[in-house]
Structure formats: structure tokens, C-alpha cells
């Protein structure tokens, strides 16, 4: 099952945060809030090496990402899929997301010691509410 164009546009064109769920090594769900990136290759987000999310993904790449329209909570899309970690382009991505979500040209909370990483989601299943198409 694939995302429709309107679901892609919903995530691409709006600064709506996502709730991302990864699996702890014991299999239990761990959820946090992320900025969502959408490009021609699909859906991704950005985090930093050493955090819970990338560590969980290395142990089990199965992931869910849910984006709710904060102005109309009866419109939302949730994808389940498989995550992969990419270091390349991760610094550029967090700056791009700072533009999308904060209107700033670069990510203001960057720490010298951290290594940003991009998490790309291969979409497995999609559920959605409030989309015509």
C-alpha cells in the first residue's frame, strides 16, 4: 500500500509534527515527536546518533509514523514500515527542516558533539482518516 499524492502533500507542505514509534529491544513501543521530511524518495526524519530512536532501529527497523493535522484532528495519516539510517545528507536535512518548522535557515540547537542521522521509512502499510483520495 502506498501513500496517495494528497497524503504526501499533507506532510510535505505543512509544518505538522509526527509521532514516531520505534521498538525497544524488548519489543515494547517507544514514541517521540519529530519533524517530518518528504521528498521524491519518500518520508524521512532526522535524529542524532546515540539516541534511543536510532539505537532501537538498529535492533529492529520496524517503525510507525503518524501525522495529525493540529487544526483538524480528524485528518491524519499513519504509516508503518521499515526504517534505514543514513548519515549522508543528514546535516543538510536538519537545516531544511529548521526552515520548514521554524522558518530559520539553519538548525539553531546544533551541538558540536552530535552526529545527525537521517531516518528514511520504506512504507509498508498506510492508514488515514480525512483524505478524499
Amino acid at each position, binding site marked *: 500500500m502506498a501513500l496517495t499524492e494528497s497524503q504526501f502533500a499533507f506532510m510535505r507542505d505543512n509544518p505538522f*509534527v509526527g*509521532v514516531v*514509534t*520505534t*521498538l525497544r529491544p524488548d*519489543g*515494547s*513501543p*517507544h*514514541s*517521540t*515527536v519529530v519533524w517530518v521530511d518528504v521528498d521524491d524518495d519518500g518520508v524521512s526524519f532526522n535524529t542524532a546518533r546515540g539516541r534511543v530512536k536510532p539505537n532501537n532501529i538498529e535492533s*529492529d527497523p*520496524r*517503525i*510507525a*509514523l*503518524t501525522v*495529525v493535522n*493540529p*487544526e483538524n*484532528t480528524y485528518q*491524519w495519516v*499513519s504509516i*508503518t514500515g521499515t526504517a534505514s539510517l543514513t548519515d549522508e545528507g543528514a546535516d543538510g536535512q536538519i537545516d531544511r527542516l529548521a526552515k520548514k518548522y521554524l522558518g530559520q535557515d539553519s538548525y539553531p540547537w546544533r551541538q558540536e558533539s552530535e552526529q545527525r542521522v537521517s531516518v528514511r521509512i520504506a512504507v*509498508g502499510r498506510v*492508514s488515514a*482518516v480525512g483524505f478524499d483520495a
Partner: protein
Amino acid sequence: MALTPAQTAFIHDNPFVAVVTTLREDGSPHSTVVWADADGEGVSFNTAYGLRKPRHIEHDPRVSVTVVDPADPFRWVSVSGVARFTDEDAEEQIERLSLLYTGEDFSGWRVPGEQRVKVRVSAERVGGWGLDG
């Protein structure tokens, strides 16, 4: 680990939806959007028997519940723990939530023959942002 009074009030007092993640039979995460509730004992939500969420929970009761302030995505709380069903005050809860979220009673939403159930989640782990104190 317990919710702080500020986290409890954040969920209880506001009509902010939650992303609930349950586990499919294969262990992969499945997320949907629900009305959320909280009290001194923890977080809860309301669903109906026979839907996917309660079926998942019967198979594996581990869930996460994440509530984001729609007006300020830097304020959020995420609870993960073990879910258990309560029939006792399920009707009372859905009516309170319906009034809080829609301003109307639940009759317009009710599916004939459904049995509502309250799902209470023990706060084994609590994450969050912007709600300290």
C-alpha cells in the same frame, strides 16, 4: 514512574488527541488517533470491543500513548506501559470525552450494538517535552 500533576492536567483538561500505538501479532507497531484521558493513576483512552486496538492489546498489552499540544508541538508527553481493559466506567468516560472534544454527547457517534471499553495504561515509562514542573 508516574505522570507529574502538570502532565496529568495537560491530558485530562485539554481536548488534545493522542496517538496510540499497539503491537500487531507480528510485533510491528500500529498507530491510530484517539481521545485521551488521564487521572492520578495514569493515562487512558476509550475504544470498543472488536476493533483492532483491543484485539492487539489482548495479544500483547504493551502500548504507547503520545499527546502533543496542537498549538505548541514543543509541549508533549508520551507514556509507554501495559494496557488493561475496564468496563466499569467506560460509558461514563466516553460521554465525558465526547463533551470535552466535541461539545456534544456521544449519541451521534455511537455504532449500534458496540460495547465501549476503557483502556487504562500503566505509566511504566514517561517521556516528554515542555511540561516540567
